[in-house]
């Protein structure tokens, strides 16, 4: 962590406290999203209780990986956005599609100024029965899909989701699928911590469930005796 601070005001930065992958999928009633509660500081797993998923307004859920301070700033921007929306008092409220677009504009504009917000964001929600799930990266790349992930989740979780996701998953099926993805990330992502949160958003509203830990499996005989089949190896 030996970076010398620069005197220039607007330059690409480096992240300090970072969150790891977020994974999300559409299910029967809305969106399910999962992330661990870790904040890494380089290679140190420094913070273990950071919430990286937050409800936005009435219809959306935002999950973020990357620099936590930038995520906290984005939450402030969104807070202001939702506040001004409520102040119109016109019975209308910003849906997930609108919030996703707002975020895309912010991220892309910062990228153009070479001063990005160092995050990958997942925005999911339901409004008037329409489910929406989108992603925005720190350079403004954005898209919608039935299942999305950030960071290493793209490499480890999405193949599982491509194989096992289908339309109209029940809540239980969706949670188990997310847990399967999070378990793989726990095994294979070195910045993952075993304290996970799952959140859901439906027409009724958003719920962020309390953190929990996943059981892991180590009982393969090949784990106990790795070199038994190959004398001389290690």
């Amino acid at each position, binding site marked *: 962590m030996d970076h010398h*601070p620069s005197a220039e005001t607007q330059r690409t930065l480096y992240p300090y406290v970072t969150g790891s992958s977020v994974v999300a999928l559409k299910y029967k009633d809305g969106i399910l999203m999962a992330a661990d509660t870790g904040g890494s500081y380089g290679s140190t797993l*420094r913070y273990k209780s*950071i919430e990286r998923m937050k409800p936005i307004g009435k219809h959306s859920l935002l999950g973020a990986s990357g*620099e*936590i*301070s930038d995520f*906290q700033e984005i939450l402030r921007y969104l807070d202001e956005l939702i506040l001004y929306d409520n102040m119109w008092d016109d019975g209308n409220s910003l849906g997930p599609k609108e919030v996703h677009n707002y975020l895309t504009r912010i991220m892309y504009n910062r990228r153009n100024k070479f001063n990005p917000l160092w995050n990958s964001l997942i925005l999911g929600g339901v409004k008037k029965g329409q489910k929406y799930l989108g992603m925005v990266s720190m350079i403004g790349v954005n898209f919608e899909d039935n299942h999305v992930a950030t960071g290493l989740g793209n490499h480890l979780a999405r193949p599982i989701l491509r194989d096992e996701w289908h339309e109209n998953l029940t809540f239980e099926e969706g949670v188990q699928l997310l847990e399967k993805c999070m378990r793989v990330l726990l095994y294979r992502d070195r910045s993952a911590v075993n304290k996970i949160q799952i959140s859901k958003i439906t027409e009724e509203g958003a719920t962020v469930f309390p953190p929990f830990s996943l059981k892991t499996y180590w009982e393969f005989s090949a784990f106990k005796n790795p070199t038994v089949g190959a004398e001389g190896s290690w």
Partner: protein
Amino acid sequence: MDQKMDFNAPHSMGTTIIGVTYNGGVVLGADSRTSTGVYVANRASDKITKLTDNVYVCRSGSAADSQVVSDYVTYFLHQHTIQLGQPATVKVAANLVRLLSYNNKNLLETGLIVGGWDKYEGGQIFGVPLGGTIVQQPFAIGGSGSSYLYGFFDQAWKEGMTKDEAEDLVKKAVSLAIARDGASGGVVRTVIINSDGVTRNFYPGDQLPLWHEELEPHNSLLDILGAPEPMNI
């Protein structure tokens, strides 16, 4: 080969800083070493700085950066207190620190721990590391010496400690970090903040426990030796 002494290296407080909540308030602790490269510029610094009567901050990283951030926050909080008509809350103080840290992240290199007591939420500790993240924690550690304390706190920290247990924990932890971190040293200072007010304590080396391979200090070898040995020729 002697190391070249760079007297123009920026003053950096290598540092070990700690903030711990207990039932009733908070205990803040720090070492007292400020280094300029390899030279110890100040061996008795005070890294626990007052922001308001009820909120203090532990400073680490660049001495200059942490001092200027503290000065601005003290200034803003003073005005805020006058306008509010009552003591500022710990949360407001921590958020002012965050704003400065975050908005100047390109220029600053300082990690801070804000701790205090207010009548609404009691004792609170907020960590504001490099980058300007703000994170409320039951305890926080920072500075270069904190690397040696993650395992220690994982094992020794308990919810609901008393004031004395909390202070003992902080003293022990800073002293352990000083033992292993070259950039931390000197004395251990603690500040206890609760509804009754603020108590500052000072613990020089001889009042701290000895760790592995450390020996009892003496004035001279001569005090240890008994009568002079007869010479064996």
